[in-house]
């Protein structure tokens, strides 16, 4: 049995999750301070990947990073090619999982008592210190929940991933693309194994989320 899809899925989801963590909290932090109208528009744009079919996201990614597109060509000249490479999966997963992190982080930040930040500033603490040592710990539960959700979403990504990196056994195959390919070639047994693996991971993730939510209360 070739375990490559499991390893590939985990690294794609793991790295995507780290990227989404920083991108999500940055976006959540900066949009919170914007005027209402701009915030509304930006919020819609940043949430779009969550409501669009993942294949549409994949379509846009190909439109931007395709080999015959300006940006794609530019990246290729420095040796980076997202199309048909395993790390292209990170891009696909990150784009689709981003809104989940962004929205949960925003919810957590909105619940943050601004007086804590005000108090820190009047005490002479730097804004960076306040962000990482006061705001983030206070919003810890929400942000952790957001990360777990993003990780789960990234792990289960199929649409955008198959559009961008396709399915090459041992190179770009992930769990979800493998399930589809095995089913397509009538390998029901093989598909079932990957389905079980996927279900086990998802169950664990949901248990973790529930645990975090209970702690929050």
């Amino acid at each position, binding site marked *: 049995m070739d375990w490559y899809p499991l390893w590939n899925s985990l690294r794609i989801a793991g790295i995507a999750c780290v990227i989404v963590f920083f991108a999500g909290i940055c976006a959540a932090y900066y949009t919170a301070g914007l005027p209402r109208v701009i915030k509304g528009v930006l919020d819609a744009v940043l949430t779009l990947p969550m409501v669009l079919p993942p294949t549409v996201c994949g379509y846009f990614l190909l439109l931007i990073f395709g080999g015959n597109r300006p940006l794609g060509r530019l990246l290729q000249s420095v040796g980076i090619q997202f199309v048909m490479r395993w790390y292209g999966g990170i891009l696909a997963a990150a784009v689709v999982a981003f809104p989940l992190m962004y929205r949960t982080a925003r919810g957590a930040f909105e619940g943050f008592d601004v*007086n804590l930040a*005000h*108090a820190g*500033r*009047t*005490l*002479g*603490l730097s804004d960076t210190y306040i962000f990482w040592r*006061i705001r983030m710990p206070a919003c810890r539960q929400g942000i952790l929940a957001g990360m777990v959700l993003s990780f789960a979403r990234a792990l289960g990504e199929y649409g955008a991933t198959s559009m961008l990196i396709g399915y090459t056994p041992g190179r770009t195959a992930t769990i979800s693309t493998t399930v589809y390919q095995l089913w397509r070639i009538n390998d029901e047994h093989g598909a079932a194994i990957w389905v079980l693996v996927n279900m086990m991971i998802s169950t664990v993730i949901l248990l973790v989320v529930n645990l975090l939510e209970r702690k929050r209360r």
Partner: protein
Amino acid sequence: MGLIVDIKKKLENFELKVAFNTAGRVLGLLGASGCGKSMTLRCIAGVEKPDEGKIILNDRVLFDSAANICLSPQERKVGYLFQDYALFPNMTVKQNIICGAKNEKKAEEYIKRYALNGLEKHYPSQLSGGQKQRTALARMLAAEPDAILLDEPFTALDNSLKARLERELMKMMEEYDGPVVFVSHDRNESYRLTDIIAVMENGHISDISEKHELFRAPRTLAATLLTGCKNISRVKRLPDGKYEATDWGIILPAPLNTGDCDYHYAGFRAHDLIPVLQPENAEVREGLLRCELVREIEDTFSIVIHFHNKGCDGKTEYSLITYETGKKDWDELREICKDGKLSFEIPDKSLIWMES
């Protein structure tokens, strides 16, 4: 020296327009909730930016819109005590204090000074109300602020704890020599803790004076109400200089030291009335309130009488007059009142005159 504030800021419902100078050390901002008191403090601390104006602390310019100066809260060195203390929940008492002190040695000194020994490793959620306040005070003072802002520190506390925390705060304010601004909606609290009181109403200061002066002779209706005056009537000036109190239905003598003022309201405090025995058929003396009892309310240590002047039954909502006295005193007056022979005199000196 002191804190000089002169700022304007457009808010959703009104314009904040505040100017004061804390030369007399402890200044109280007294006003109903939502009148802009806390916003004023936030502007001084620098976490909110006024639209225009100046804030000067001990000759140091913190904010000056004309010169385009706006120091960050970190640079201002202004201590801020929040209503709920805003202790960092993820840090221990000691870590919280280090945030202000910046080094361990100084933090330990303040832990000792505020009797927090043994609680260093506790988290804010494990502290009692008093310990929380001491931690917040220690954290604020360890940063050695040039001025201190106190934002309704005792709201949402029960009475016995309130009295104890007030004493601790008083002690701190005695030891601290720098400008202090104390925000509150409680007149008694403000009276006990401050030297000068500024009455705030819809974003502006309607009256500012030394506290004894303010409580003796408030100059505006808002200030009078805030100082706890329960009896107020609209007044109309008569040709002979006397005033007709339209809500009470009596004539008031000309104000004692009147200038060219034209007063619109008069008031007196509930305990200032003097009961007078008057036979039913005697001639009605000018300025005498003939008591028609509406209700008696028994308070913890006193009794509150609601009545109106004879003939003013339900005339206006201000017609109801409140008289407060000791329970024993009322026991003696009750029978006289029943016979309809009780009247009240308002001493000239007790009358509060308001222009607006």
